[in-house]
């Protein structure tokens, strides 16, 4: 930890050249500074302030979890998972919402995974340094910074209206896939970048072509890094609410979707719906649904962290 009261702290007062007049004053001050109290105080004060700031963040997280769990845990039973939404709070459940979430999650992953990984491979393995590649890089960085609700406007106009897919699961998944594409591309590139050149050279030396090298050597070596990125991206997509609201996901869906063209709702939208109602019981429902949503999010993030840890351990190539 910190070398508190270290020697350098007491230097400053001595470097002031004393004249006769304030010598007495200075002596007094020097006494005060003995053991470098002032600078030590400054150091310790800041350190504690910073710890306090970090604690505020942690405390906030704790309060949030405590509030959600204490309010919602009582509602979590089998009926809550198996009942469709209802106008009566005590009968309402999240059945249609979590079925919708699973649909959206799987379809989004199925669309975004091949495209994102493909784009990542192209940018890392095939791309020549020219103006087009520069444009691609800048563009991907820009896409990552666009607010998610703008993707909702894109999905609404292009998928829902121009392609006439309406507020269906397919529209939602296509929109979210575009939204998480930059995350997948960036993490794919990072994973591929860490594969050492010697592995590729070995493969070429045995007569493999470029694609054979990528398919049989580079991809398997970087796969767990890529999967980590994809899991993080999907867990981000699960929590997204705004773009799905904009494309026309419904607040009230009584029947679980059965195909990609059905209308749908997802957990975050079900939560938003319940928060918006004045009755206390619906707030409890929202808290219970939040527990489920947070559970999924934390499990996925934990899985990603674990995979990354394992991958980093394994990929010490030398």
């Amino acid at each position, binding site marked *: 930890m910190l070398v508190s009261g270290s020697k*350098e702290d007491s230097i400053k007062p001595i470097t002031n050249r004393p004249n006769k007049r304030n010598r007495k004053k200075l002596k007094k001050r020097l006494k005060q500074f003995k053991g470098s109290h002032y600078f030590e105080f400054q150091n310790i004060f800041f350190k504690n302030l910073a710890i306090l700031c*970090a604690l505020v963040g942690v405390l906030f*997280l704790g309060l949030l979890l405590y509030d959600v769990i204490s309010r919602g845990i009582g509602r979590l039973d089998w009926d809550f998972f198996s009942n469709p939404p209802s106008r009566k709070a005590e009968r309402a459940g999240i059945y249609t919402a979590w079925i919708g979430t699973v649909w959206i999650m799987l379809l989004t992953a199925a669309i975004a995974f091949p495209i994102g990984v493909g784009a990542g491979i192209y940018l890392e393995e095939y791309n020549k340094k020219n103006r087009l590649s520069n444009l691609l890089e800048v563009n991907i960085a820009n896409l990552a910074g666009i*607010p998610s609700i703008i993707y909702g*406007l894109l999905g609404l106009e292009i998928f829902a209206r121009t392609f006439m897919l309406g507020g269906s699961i397919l529209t939602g998944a296509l929109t979210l896939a575009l939204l998480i594409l930059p995350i997948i591309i960036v993490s794919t590139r990072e994973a591929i970048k860490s594969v050492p050149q010697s592995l590729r050279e070995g493969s070429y030396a045995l007569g493999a072509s470029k694609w054979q090298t990528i398919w049989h050597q580079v991809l398997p070596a970087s796969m767990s890094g890529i999967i980590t990125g994809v899991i993080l991206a999907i867990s981000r997509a699960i929590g997204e609410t*705004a773009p799905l609201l904009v494309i026309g996901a419904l607040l009230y869906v009584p029947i679980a979707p059965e195909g990609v063209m059905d209308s749908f709702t997802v957990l975050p939208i079900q939560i938003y719906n319940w928060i918006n109602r004045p009755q206390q019981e619906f707030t409890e429902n*929202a808290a219970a649904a939040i527990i489920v949503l947070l559970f999924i999010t934390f499990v996925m993030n934990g899985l990603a*962290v674990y995979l990354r840890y394992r991958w980093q351990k394994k990929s010490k190539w030398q």
Partner: protein
Amino acid sequence: MNLKEKIIENLLFCCALLTILTTIGIVGVLVVETFKFFIEVSIIEFFTSTQWTPLFAEKHFGILPLLAGTFLTTTIAILVAVPMGLCIAVYLSEYAHPKTRGIVKPILEILAAIPTVVYGYFALVFLTPALQNLIPGLAGFNALSPGIVMGIMILPLVSSLSEDALYAVPKPLREGAFALGSTRFQTAWKVVVPSAFSGIAVSVILAVSRAIGETMIVAIAAGQQPRFTLNPFVPIETATTYIVQVSQGDIPHDSLEYRTIFAVGITLFILTFILNNVSFWLKRRFHQAYH
């Protein structure tokens, strides 16, 4: 064999090209619909009128109230996130034991993984009632409580990116400062922080951009009353909330009211686009500084 390789390469190129198509799609959609909007509404009214009532009988199309709401919540979020985030970053980079850093950083990053609808719930159900005990005049929907919650949400963004910037400052700079008799505090704030300034600025700009585009927290807890005010205690409406509000209603497509969301969307897009590009530009310069 060669043909197969070529086909695969082109397929992969198409994947990468899709990102450019996405951008073209976004800009195209926003521009076309906004163009139709400005045929019917004067652009001067859009930027100068202080009333935003496109859904009422008497229509006014001034975006200033929405921008004021966005500005208000963003400012509150930044006032929460930046001082705290910077303190945490300096602490983690200059003071803390590597083990402490290894624990604190991931815990804070959990904050960034929580879905925003959960933050909205927390602002409305927990924080607003708590603040109402302290501030008697606080309305049930207000800018203060979502602003604070948004600040906590972007705290890990500021603290992580700033910490990276501080960490990248070369060691000899610190050693020089220590050799001149500086304390750790003086070294951190008078030498390391100024050296990492552009990196810290990048994190702040990205945080601002994130706060401007954040939707669910303000849609749940800030209200839906477009007001040209800087009072954080009353209900307001942000640009993002308006888009959510309209897409929830049953407004016919191809109507003027429907096009307003694209006009608001393009404003939002341009704001965040400028901020993101300023941050890239800064980042590039700052990377050159030490290499």
